[in-house]
């Protein structure tokens, strides 16, 4: 009742004097006592009304002022609110009424970082709309209703990139003393993705490196022992062993190089690239560097797409080159002699178009999907070869590190099994996507009976053309309007002839 007492100070003196006079009159003048009583009643009633009105008004004013008042400490200098706004970590003040009313848990203040990251409107909103992670809600509840401060680690998968956060919550002193139900708590969040990522990557790198290097290392040690012992004087064996050892050492070198580049990409994966790159130009560069290998196998490299130099996309040039390089490398590896590998570039592709199936019978799988509703248009590159294809059941594991499809004759075993993993991480950093589509070999096994929608259909007479197509797509900063895009079909072999 503290707040009500102040009202007494501003009761007009006139009404008090009036009442005094009235009472005095009742002693001196022969007035009817009942009349005096009625007069007193009226005065009392009006005064009571007046007091209630005043009290209400005061409360209203208090409520209006509340949000500012709670952070204003000194009349000079920045207010607490302004200070909090500038803090780079998300900071929120949450109000609550009672434990079982979830909707009443509201964010009444959110600084700029919190508004941006958790999509909170200026005027606040329900806490669950901002964060619905159960541990965090519990932590806030403990601060609100238990008066306990605490912290909790949580993972928030922001699309394809996991984010690690730590939330701190602490009770705040009550603002409105007359409203005992209202409670306040502070919620501060800290993005710990960087440090956690670093930790995890170091562990991954060590585990992978030690595991994968063990085999070639063991083989080299074995050969060294043989060369020292039984094969000491056998010239022919020595040459053979040395060349095997050389190949193993090369493999170790490649593994380390690939692992390092994978680690580096992972390290920057949550920082989107800022530069611009021309996709058609990147493709041309890669194709130029691979024509010799292609010619050895007599494989034609065909580029189909817009003219280079006109349509830059958001991207890191070196990384985009690596994506194209790895995909075309694989295609060349599996393409049969005298066949064609096509590289097609499409601009202004929407997300549904990017993942659409081009061949109804083939298997298709999205290996990586960008966050929905972030970019409208994508530039897509599709690398397609007429190799043996990949069976449906192997598709999901393709971009796993060190994964290689079993029983596949890849000719040379030059790969490390990291190529597609690198591709996936680069594309993820670029907020793009990766889709694989493949028609594997059709064999008369019971597998194929299962495949056809419950209908046991006869196998087609002619086996379909096997192929593998990887599509990578990268966000465009704007639509180019491909209606008038000049298209260009280039035969790598022909262009090489032109060059001399």
């Amino acid at each position, binding site marked *: 009742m503290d707040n009500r007492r102040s009202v007494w100070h501003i009761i007009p003196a006139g009404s008090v004097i009036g009442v005094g006079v009235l009472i005095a009159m009742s002693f001196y003048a022969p007035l009817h006592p009942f009349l005096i009583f009625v007069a007193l009643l009226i005065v009392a009633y009006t005064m009571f009304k007046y007091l209630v009105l005043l009290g209400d008004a005061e409360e209203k004013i208090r409520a209006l002022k509340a949000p500012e008042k709670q952070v204003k400490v000194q009349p000079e200098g920045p207010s607490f609110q302004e200070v909090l706004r500038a803090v780079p970590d998300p900071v929120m003040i949450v109000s609550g009424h009672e434990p079982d009313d979830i909707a009443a848990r509201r964010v009444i203040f959110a600084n700029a970082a919190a508004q941006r990251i958790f999509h909170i409107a200026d005027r606040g909103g*329900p806490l669950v709309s901002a964060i619905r992670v159960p541990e965090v809600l519990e932590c806030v509840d403990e601060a609100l209703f238990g008066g306990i401060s605490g912290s909790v680690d949580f993972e928030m998968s922001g699309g394809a990139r996991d984010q690690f956060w730590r939330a701190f919550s602490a009770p705040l002193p009550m603002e409105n003393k007359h409203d005992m139900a209202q409670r306040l708590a502070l919620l501060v969040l800290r993005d710990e993705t960087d440090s956690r990522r670093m930790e995890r990557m170091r562990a991954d790198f060590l585990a992978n490196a030690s595991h994968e290097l063990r085999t070639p290392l063991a083989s080299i040690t074995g050969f060294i022992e043989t060369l020292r012992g039984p094969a000491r004087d056998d010239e022919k064996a020595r040459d053979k062993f040395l060349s095997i050892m050389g190949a193993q050492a090369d493999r170790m070198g490649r593994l380390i190089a690939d692992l390092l580049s994978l680690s580096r990409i992972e390290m920057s994966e949550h920082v989107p690239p800022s530069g611009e790159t021309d996709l058609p130009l990147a493709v041309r560069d890669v194709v130029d560097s691979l024509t010799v290998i292609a010619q050895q196998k007599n494989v034609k490299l065909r580029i189909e797409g817009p003219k280079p130099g006109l349509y830059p996309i958001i991207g890191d040039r070196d990384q985009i080159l690596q994506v194209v390089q790895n995909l075309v490398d694989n295609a060349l590896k599996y393409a049969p002699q005298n066949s064609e590998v096509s590289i097609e570039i499409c601009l202004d592709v929407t997300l549904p178009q990017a993942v659409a199936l081009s061949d109804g019978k083939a298997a298709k799988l999205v290996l990586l999907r960008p966050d929905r509703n972030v970019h409208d248009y994508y530039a897509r590159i599709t690398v397609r070869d007429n190799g043996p294809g990949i069976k449906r059941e192997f598709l999901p594991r393709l971009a796993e590190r060190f994964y290689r499809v079993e029983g596949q004759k890849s000719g040379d075993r030059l790969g490390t099994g990291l190529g597609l993993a690198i591709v996936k991480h680069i594309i993820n950093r670029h907020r793009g996507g990766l889709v694989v589509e493949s028609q594997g070999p059709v064999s008369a096994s019971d597998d194929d009976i299962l495949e056809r929608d419950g209908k046991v259909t006869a196998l087609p007479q002619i086996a379909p053309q096997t192929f593998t197509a990887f599509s990578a797509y990268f966000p465009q900063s704007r639509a180019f309007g491909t209606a008038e895009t000049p298209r260009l079909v280039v035969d790598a072999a022909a262009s090489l002839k032109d060059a001399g």
Partner: protein
Amino acid sequence: MNNHIVKTYGDELDQLSAEVVLMGGLAEAQVADAVDAVARRDVALAQSVVARDHKLDELEKDIERKCIRLIALRQPMAEDLRKTVAAMKLATALERTGDLAKNIAKRAIVISEAEPMTPLTRSIERMGKLVSSRLRDVLDAYKGGKVELAQSVWASDTEVDEHYNALFRELLTYMMGDPRTISACTHLLFMAKNLERIGDYATNMAEHIHFELTGEDYVESRPKANTLSNLE
């Protein structure tokens, strides 16, 4: 509950959707933790998933009760009615999602005693990630009233099926290769099946959200790949 604060109609609707979002957060965590428990062979985590499931049941009952009360007392019309019905349907779907997550966790406890089958559990993890992202998108669509987001979840329904089919074949190969793994693989198979169902619930929720926001049903039928589940 307190009676001295008289809630307005709008407040009641807001509270409903806040509770659905809260329930969604719980269901998301249950699915993620269950899959984590499988991947890391973490029995304690699996047990806590099983123990937490009752919260979802209670929330569902609470939401249902509130919806019925709201319909009876306020007789909502048009948009408000759709909101109420959507809250009820989402609550049911989320409760089922929780049941499936609990089932996965229970199986995780059983297979933690068997030999580790890393490539297979990694595939379960991958499928779990995909399903979780669908759940997340659907809840984001609900909370933000985003029709296109709901639509895009709805349209990418077949992806989970592809993963399920691949995992099914992977499991078959594994079981044929080493018959001792059959019982553990069967558990993994049911986990995959549960994840697929959760994916289906996400699709259903996307449909309810679409209806809530637009008042229109989807006319086209859902894209379905050739799935093994169609055989059943």
